[in-house]
């Protein structure tokens, strides 16, 4: 492992990150993983073993939709797109996340 600090995810945060990524535009699995890694400055590395099951869960709940298409370098790829229900879900998760982070911050600050 190159990165020494790979953050442990709070349960459910991976889905939130995926939804956030997709809210900027459709993307394929590789692109999603890349985006999260880049934006987080390599702090968050998504293992493929957890990315795809998470994508499946999002599909089952109807928060994302998938479609086969062609990638930027002419490769066949499966593109994921956030659905309106997914956007609503994302908003909820962000609210919860902010609340939790805020709370944790206060606890840590008090110490």
């Amino acid at each position, binding site marked *: 492992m190159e990165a020494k600090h790979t953050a442990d995810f709070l349960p459910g945060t991976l889905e939130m990150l995926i939804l956030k990524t997709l809210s900027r535009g459709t993307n*394929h*699995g*590789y692109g999603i*993983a890349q985006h999260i890694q880049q934006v987080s400055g390599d702090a968050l590395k998504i*293992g*493929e*073993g957890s990315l*795809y*099951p998470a994508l*499946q*869960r999002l*599909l*089952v709940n109807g928060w994302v939709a*998938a479609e*086969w298409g062609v*990638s930027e*370098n002419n*490769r*066949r*790829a*499966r593109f994921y797109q956030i659905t309106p229900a997914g956007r609503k879900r994302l908003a909820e998760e962000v609210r919860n996340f902010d609340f939790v982070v805020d709370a944790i911050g206060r606890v840590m600050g008090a110490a």
Partner: protein
Amino acid sequence: MEQDLAEDLRIHQEMIEDELLGQGRNADEARWEARRRVGNVASTLEQGRAAWNWVWLDSLAQDLRYAWRGLSSSKLFTATAVLTLGVGLGLNTLLFTVFNAYVLRPFAVKDSGELHMLRRTAPSGGSWEFSLREFGDLRRRSDVLSDVAALTYTNVPGTPRYSVLIVSGNYFEMLGRPAQLGRTFTDDLAGPDSDPYLVLSHTAWVTKFGQDPNIVGHKVMLHGAPFEVIGVMPEDYAGTESATPDFWTPFTMAHRLLGSSVDPFSPAQPRQFRLLVRLRGSVDPVRAEEAITPYVQSASGGIYEDPRSVRAKLEARSSPVALSPQLLILFAPVFVSFGLVLVAACANVANMLLARMTKRQREIGVRLSLGASRGRMVRQLLVESLLIALLAGVAGMAVSQLGLVFGERLVLATLGPEFAPLVRLHSLEADYRVVGFVLAAAVAVTILFGLLPALQASRLNLTQALRGEFGSTWRPSRLRNAMVINQVTVCTVLLILSGVLYRNTINFRARETGIRVQDVMEVEVRQAKTREEIARQFPAAAVVARPPLHSPAFETMVTPAGAPAAMPVRFNYTSPEYFDVLGIPIVKGRRFTRQEAEAGAAVAVVSQATARKFWPEGEALGKTIRFQRVQRPFIGNVDDFAEAIVVGVAKDVISGWTWEGDDPTLLYLPINAASRHARVLLVRSSPEALRRAIETGWPEVPVQIVPLREWLAIQTYPLMMASWVGTLLGVIALLLTVSGMYGVMAYLVSQRQKEIGIRIALGAPAAEMLRMVLRQSLRLTALGLGLGLVMALGAAHLLVANVQMNVRAWDPIAYWLGCALVAVAALAAAWPPAWRASRVDPMTTLRMD
């Protein structure tokens, strides 16, 4: 979906490879690194499936495959289990098929839920049918009724015998069913004198007219009149009665079939129609009853003492028998008996499964130690049971279909040759409800026979199981013993009860009626002249208003001389020859003379019991009886004379129900063959001779000859039938018990073989081993018998309370025989294992491990 995911992962891997190649890695390294980063594809795929809940289905399919393999590798076990359950399920399916046909399946008509039968009821009892005038008035009640049809049933005797439903013209329109061939009739009927016609039922078309495609236009002779066939109804239309009639004919032709005395259009307006009503849309039946009751009361003036107590009553008619709590209570004993046999079958299969689990303990242990969860294990075992049950369901369908065919034949064959044509059975085909029942029953019994063994087996101790031993919590023997006890109980109850019923039937049949039934034939002849002529042809022939042994005679109110008040007495009109033909002795005085019968003289013969009741101390001969007139249902009025003189006393006989015993009262009044009361001829002859004579002498007379003997037998037929069905169920339960007992004892012996070997080696006598096994089986049998006896006693008393037939509940012989049979069978089943126990060779057993 899974392919999509796999493809997605593969592409992802390629993208990583591209990225690495772009960073200047070499191809091999890049591929290897990419594969490492994507990781375990299979596990990812499985997690993906889990997200879609497919694991459950997937492992169910796996369980099914596994169960199928397991079952097909032990064919004997599977066959035995499937057959055992199949018989149990089949019997219950058979019962359900009958129940479905009569109660659940709606008539194939438009909106059957709106159909009701309208009756008028009064607290004083009795239910009068309706006249055409009343029918016409009710048809105008469009506030609650959308339509009303009048119907009455009649039989046209002869060969073949035809059943006819006489209906109002709107009948078919109201039910919304057109004919399959030709046409039906509508409300604008031609007058009574027009050429008569009829509509054929599909069944009659097939069975009596050879499915002739050109049947429309043909003529059928009924009571000497040519009825033209105008149409044939479709196959699924079975009518609105419990039995499908052969023909429907409009009520304008009723007089040709019923005789002019009961012409519905006559000014007398005879009340002879039942009314089938269709409620208006959403009208509640109770509200409709309230709305019609005032009219019914105003129309009932002449027939009830207190018309204001009369009520209109609507009964649902969406199927032949309406589903009601009373119906379920009435038939509960039948359902319970059939259900008990299924329970006994389940107990047997559960026993077999337990034995099988014991053999499979090592396999189960291995699977548990390899990480199978307990729930998964239980499910696996249940899936195996479910598979057995479903196979048994298929077998059960076959059993029930065979059973129905056989049962129908048996009923017709045992009814007597003259009676069988009178019986019409409703179509008993299996529909989706029956299939649904079998499936539901199969799933239900899976829980019943599969759950306990599965729970038991999954609760084992791992380390012991791997060594081939179950832990101390594994106590299948206790469970298995309970099942055998249950089986013994079930067959004891069934056998005792059918024994009680059988003995009662035999007892009733053996009862001396005091009436000669041998060679006495009964013929109904409507025409007075023909009746006279036929009677004259035979040396021993009598005429009677109500033939004996059909049901008790009607009562009339009389005041015997010297009595303070009127009292009811049963009465019948007979010709003087009645006493000779039926061999009823006159114990005092004389019978009527022929002259008295011709003249309709005011004389009477009373039975001994009547004489005792009317004049307890005095002499009956020469006393007068004054007839009272009352308006009450089931009370007849004698209007031939105001009073009659007793000229003779006849010996007491049974002319009503045999289980009632001697007639409590009976008054004989004289008639001759031409009298308006005369209806039936009783002739001492063979049926063939009588038929030949009538067919040659009076070819236009339709005859239906029934030997009096068959009427006698038919009285106890339902009781006899119940005892047969009970015996059949009891014997099946007994067979299940025998195999259950054998299984448990054989298992016991094989399990304790080592111990027995050691005991024999230490000098225990072989006979002691035999006794040990027999004692064990005796204990189970005794417990089951005890329970069975108590339950049988309770059930018999319930039966007596519900069946108004003077059935004796306590019959020592039936109880003793039932118990003895079960005990002997159970011990016989335990004998072979016991014998094997006594022959255990100590040397072989000790060398076994």
